[in-house]
């Protein structure tokens, strides 16, 4: 197809070809031509969502991508618009989420002249993008857009930046929209490297106490049924990383839940008792394994991952299978002999261990006696929310309580900023998730500290009719910092008091959202039911005890064996 059009019009046409339906963004001086080209679209499926801060635009694109499992798109202008995106881009990079960030840039002759609103955004974002493009002539744009989607979505996904100088947006020229593109230095692994799969299979079959550790890669690859088939076939208990939470239904008898700094106590305990660990789409992060040298010591560790650079990065392993974990798992399942029988006695003991530990920790981990605690509130949320409802979180105690006390039943319905730990992520990301799947309720499990950071997205949720539920566990504190100060700094609280400001109900109502403040479990029940039925954004303010801690706790720099289960 050959056509005369502006660079900005070519950008919009190329995005339409990629079947983009949502763009989250905010205009400014250097991307005016792009917004003008958006305005000129006729009968377009693309819907622009005007954000109130560019950081939220990137988080919305990220939340959209995680649920839709295709790249989310965000727009910002040059300079401060672009730098405001950086936290969101870094968040997506840390969690391997595909987003396409399109920034305006000052005109080519002004680049390097310290022009107004000029920032070298490609330089700034280099360590947190998979790739970045800057077209120098307008007819490079269609190909760059196509390459951006290909790079962002394939292999190990990640963010791609397209930085378009204003004069390139305005330049009118003949455009060629390629059907096929090739990036010669980029060869994401399509077929698994199965050279070690037999070895891996033998290790698993001969293990007496095998364990699966499912990571975010299972969710990215959508390998839910393969994971469940494997676990059930061999009766292997499944722990997850925090990013892998919800890769496996958490109400399944074989599910142990997440391990790590605030993992489930029984999961942290049992993963140390395993004699073989199969890590699937996981990167052995410090938050998950504690100490690299202690985790999986002297036992067989097998690693399935799509990214060759993850093999041996943090943890040396005994067998590795590189490739999309869905296809690797399928290959592994085929290798298991039809007549294979696990030693039932050993298997029974191994699975029985879970019950023993659950009971033990149930009794020994302190439960607060208040009418409403984070734990009770989250159990109530699980009770009311349909299994296919989507849940995301802010960052801090609220996030770790969600990990501990909210069971994900339908795989792939939970996500959080697990790698970068970005406060303010959850609320805009939940709006993005709602855009991706608007027929299910979407909940942001929030704390007051995180919610404060991006609460102005209430305007977006209300005006764009993308209603989400903010489940606000309000302890008037930067609670996780307070917990660390309580634990490691002898209760010297420094800079953690939020003092219940603002009044979250008044705040929500001022944006046209619905608000509840709940003082009892019965009120919470009623509020949740009202929120799920509501077609407008809802904030449920749930006051909790500022002294409520998250336990268990594996202190930084220590191993899982050093888990603390209470103060």
């Amino acid at each position, binding site marked *: 197809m050959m056509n005369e059009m502006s660079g900005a019009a070519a950008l919009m046409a190329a995005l339409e070809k990629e079947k983009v339906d949502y763009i989250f963004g905010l205009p400014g001086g250097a991307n005016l031509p792009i917004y003008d080209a958006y305005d000129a679209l006729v009968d377009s499926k693309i819907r622009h969502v005007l954000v109130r801060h560019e950081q939220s635009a990137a988080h919305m694109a990220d939340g959209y991508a995680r649920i839709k499992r295709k790249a989310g798109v965000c727009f910002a202008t040059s300079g401060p618009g672009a730098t405001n995106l950086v936290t969101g881009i870094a968040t997506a990079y840390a969690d391997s989420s595909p987003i396409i960030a399109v920034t305006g840039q000052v005109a080519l002759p002004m680049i390097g002249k310290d022009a107004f609103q000029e920032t070298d955004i490609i330089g700034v974002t280099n360590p947190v993008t998979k*790739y970045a493009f800057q077209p120098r002539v307008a007819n490079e744009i269609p190909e760059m857009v196509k390459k951006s989607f290909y790079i962002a979505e394939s292999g190990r996904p990640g963010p791609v930046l397209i930085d378009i100088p204003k004069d390139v947006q305005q330049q009118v020229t003949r455009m060629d929209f390629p059907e096929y593109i090739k990036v010669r230095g980029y060869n994401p692994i399509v077929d698994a490297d199965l050279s070690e799969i037999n070895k891996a299979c033998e290790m698993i079959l001969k293990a007496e106490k095998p364990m699966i550790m499912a990571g975010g890669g299972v969710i990215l690859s959508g390998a839910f049924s393969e994971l469940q088939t494997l676990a059930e076939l061999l009766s292997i208990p499944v722990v997850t990383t925090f990013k892998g939470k919800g890769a496996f239904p958490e109400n399944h008898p074989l599910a142990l839940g997440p391990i790590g700094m605030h993992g489930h106590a029984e999961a942290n305990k049992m993963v140390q008792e395993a004699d073989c660990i199969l890590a699937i789409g996981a990167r052995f992060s410090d938050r998950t394994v504690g100490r690299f040298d202690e985790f999986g010591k002297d036992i067989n560790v097998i690693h399935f991952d799509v990214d060759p650079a993850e093999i041996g990065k943090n943890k040396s392993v005994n067998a590795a299978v590189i490739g999309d974990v869905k296809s690797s798992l399928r290959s592994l399942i085929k290798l298991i002999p039809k007549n294979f029988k696990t030693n039932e006695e050993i298997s029974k003991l191994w699975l029985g261990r879970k019950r023993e530990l659950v009971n033990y920790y149930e009794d020994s981990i302190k439960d607060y006696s208040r009418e409403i605690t984070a734990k009770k509130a989250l159990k109530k949320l699980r009770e009311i929310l349909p299994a296919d409802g989507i849940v995301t979180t802010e960052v801090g105690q609220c996030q770790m309580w969600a990990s501990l006390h909210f069971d994900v039943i339908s795989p792939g319905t939970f996500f959080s900023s697990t790698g970068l730990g970005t406060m303010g992520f959850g609320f805009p990301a939940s709006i993005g998730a709602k855009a991706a799947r608007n027929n299910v309720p979407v909940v942001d499990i929030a704390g007051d500290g995180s919610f404060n950071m991006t609460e102005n997205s209430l305007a977006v949720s209300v005006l764009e009719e993308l209603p989400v539920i903010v489940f606000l566990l309000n302890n008037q504190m930067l609670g996780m910092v307070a917990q660390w100060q309580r634990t490691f700094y002898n209760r010297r609280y420094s800079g953690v008091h939020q003092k219940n400001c603002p009044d979250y109900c008044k705040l929500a109502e001022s944006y046209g959202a619905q608000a509840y403040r709940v003082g009892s479990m019965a009120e919470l029940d009623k509020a949740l039911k009202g929120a799920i039925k509501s077609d407008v954004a809802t904030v449920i303010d749930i006051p909790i005890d500022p002294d409520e801690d998250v336990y268990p706790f594996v202190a930084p720099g220590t191993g899982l064996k050093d888990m603390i289960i209470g103060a």
Partner: protein
Amino acid sequence: MQKNKNTIFDDENDDKLYILSVIVENKPGVLFRITNLFRSRNFNIESITVGITEKPDLSRMTITTVSDVKTLEQLVKQLQKLIDVIQINVLNKENAVYRELALIKMNAKDPTTRIEIANFASIYRGNIMDISNETITVEIIGTPDKIDAFKNLVSNYGIIQVARTGVSALPRGAVNDHL
């Protein structure tokens, strides 16, 4: 085009000097992406040279780095992830030819000193590039070891300035990868 997977790793755990010959896209920003990777992942660069290859759209970077085998393996994998990197070869003393050029300026006020230095330079197959009443500048081409040896030899005369290019290298023998 496949990136070279058959890189040769030594099996020692000690730090060693490795020469990475990296074929990259010849376009703006590529050198930045590579050096930024070294910085952000805490890898070390001893020297780096860049120049165009037999193909105008490709550059060859020769990077020398001191590391153990595990770090080297991780470094190669991380470099391979960069989209502008087309191919990586890990070279060593046995499988590659490698050379560095150094310009060394020394004090040489005394005529006998100038003769002595000129003699040393000739033994090292160096060239006198500049000579004045006060200084003499010698060009030495060879392995980094040879350049170090020459520097040691003439250090008593007083070295004023040194400029070294870093190592350039090519694998020995027939080429079996076609770009």
